[in-house]
């Protein structure tokens, strides 16, 4: 009976670019779910519009435990996220979380890879690694963009060495994030990644080739968001201990997985 939906208040809403929005939401003291939040976890956001019943899973971009606030950077991909983007400071929104398992922070040189709307969770991770005593030069962030719309890039600067790849070559390495990793001969002891499936496949292959452990954050359509409905499964290499088939629940067992335990 511990958990329940909480009513968060919108502290700010900002359009970063195109369809990318940044929203800070704050919580009351008794419902300060920001305290337990970890990089890589997500929230279920609920629409007000009654014709949209299912929660939208949104990854956590930044955590302010003291002020009891969370930052969500999301892309408007449908009517639900469109509704969120219209919320203004002072509006309220029902949320559930933090949900899922976040990234496990490892010491030493690390490579943080984010692609497209997979970039936001890497910001909190970079901050967390830095605050945990990581040296800035050991926190290597590779961000993959479509073009020169480099949302969030500057915000990584205080905590990490930032490298960029763009599909159109307008900025940084022309190509994908792995091209950037190779071009700059980035190396490290742990890979953290979040982004589209093709990118995750590339990251997994790269990590395997270089014998580096990789933590990847997966995405899948969800319903309950808490592991009950078995909607958001991904294929696992071995038979999963919970499902007893080769399926893992992205919302509950993930969204962050060891790259080696899932089939992409």
């Amino acid at each position, binding site marked *: *009976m511990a958990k329940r*939906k909480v009513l968060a208040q919108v502290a700010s809403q900002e359009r970063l670019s195109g369809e990318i929005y940044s929203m800070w939401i704050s919580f009351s003291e008794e419902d300060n779910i920001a305290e337990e939040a970890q990089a890589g976890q997500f929230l279920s956001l609920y629409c007000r519009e009654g014709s949209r*019943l*299912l929660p939208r899973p949104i990854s956590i971009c930044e955590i302010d435990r003291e002020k009891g606030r969370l930052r969500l950077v999301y892309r408007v991909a449908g009517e*639900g996220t469109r509704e969120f983007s219209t919320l203004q400071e002072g509006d309220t929104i029902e949320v559930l979380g933090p949900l899922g398992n976040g990234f496990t922070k490892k010491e030493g040189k690390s490579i943080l890879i984010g692609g497209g709307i997979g970039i936001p969770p890497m910001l909190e991770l970079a901050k967390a690694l830095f605050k945990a005593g990581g040296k800035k030069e050991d926190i290597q962030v590779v961000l993959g963009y479509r073009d020169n719309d480099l949302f969030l890039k500057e915000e990584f600067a205080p905590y990490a060495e930032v490298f960029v790849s763009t599909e159109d070559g307008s900025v940084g390495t022309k190509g994908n994030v792995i091209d950037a990793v190779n071009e700059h001969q980035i190396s490290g002891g742990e890979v953290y990644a979040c982004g589209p499936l093709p990118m995750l496949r590339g990251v997994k292959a790269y990590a395997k080739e270089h014998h580096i452990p990789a933590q990847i954050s997966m995405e899948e*359509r969800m319903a*309950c968001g808490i592991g009950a409905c*078995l*909607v958001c*499964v991904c294929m696992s290499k071995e038979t999963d201990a919970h499902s007893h088939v080769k399926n893992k629940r992205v919302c509950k067992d993930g969204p962050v997985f060891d790259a080696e335990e899932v089939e992409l």
Partner: protein
Amino acid sequence: MNTERNLSVDFAGVRMKNPVTTASGTFGSGMEFEEFVDLNGLGAVTTKGVASVPWEGNPVPRICETYGGMLNAIGLQNPGIDVFIERDLPFLQKYDTNIIVNVCGKTPEEYVEVVRRLAAEKISLLEINISCPNVKAGGIAFGQNPKLVEKITREIKDVAKQPVMMKLSPNVTDITEMAKAAEAGGADAISLINTLTGMKIDIHRRSFALANKTGGLSGPAIKPVAVRMVYQAAHAVKIPVLGMGGIRNAEDALEFIMAGASMVAVGTYQFHHPSAAADVVQGIEAFMEENGVKDIKELIGCV
């Protein structure tokens, strides 16, 4: 709460402290929901369908949202009866609530196998899923033919040690035919409705929103169809009816009860509001208070 109010019902010989349970497949075995709902407060917990062996289920995407509802095509992924008995049942048996086990299979033999395995277990009721629209074999195939409904009901009754409730499909011309067939086969109760077969097309990708092409429609959108079928079924048979389909709150649940359901199940709406089932129990009690209803039985089939 006023202790004078009696919410308890006798359902197929099982005493339920209140008429509210969870719809199979929306609540797992309760483990993930216990943080949100006091399982002791429910009349029963209905578990996700379990088969004789583990099932992988369908490929993703398994879900899409629709107007006031959703389509799912999970395909009854489940860990199989062994794990269910070892892990899920002991978890539920810690609670002071009834356990309704939903049983699925691809052949009559598979259903019977699962029912046999459950014979010695401390569970209150068996719900036989002959209405899942998302599996290639079994499921709905059995639920759309009255002869098959009666036959499989009888085969299960022959081996069942607990009362048997047949879960009926709404994807039929005449629900009363199916209800009567289940009764004729010896069913102790029926539950309805399972989901309506539906489809969503992603017009930008020009393909199906679900990997399975079709899925089961659930949620508030389908409630009027569910209430109608529960009313028809309850008036066609003498065995008790468990009603479900789009219940969001106590008002919705009371519609089903007044239509003739002795019990109700909360399903899809729990994805929007995780404590919905417990809230429905409270809401029903509040309605009884306000309207001076001493016993829930006064409301069952009162229209």
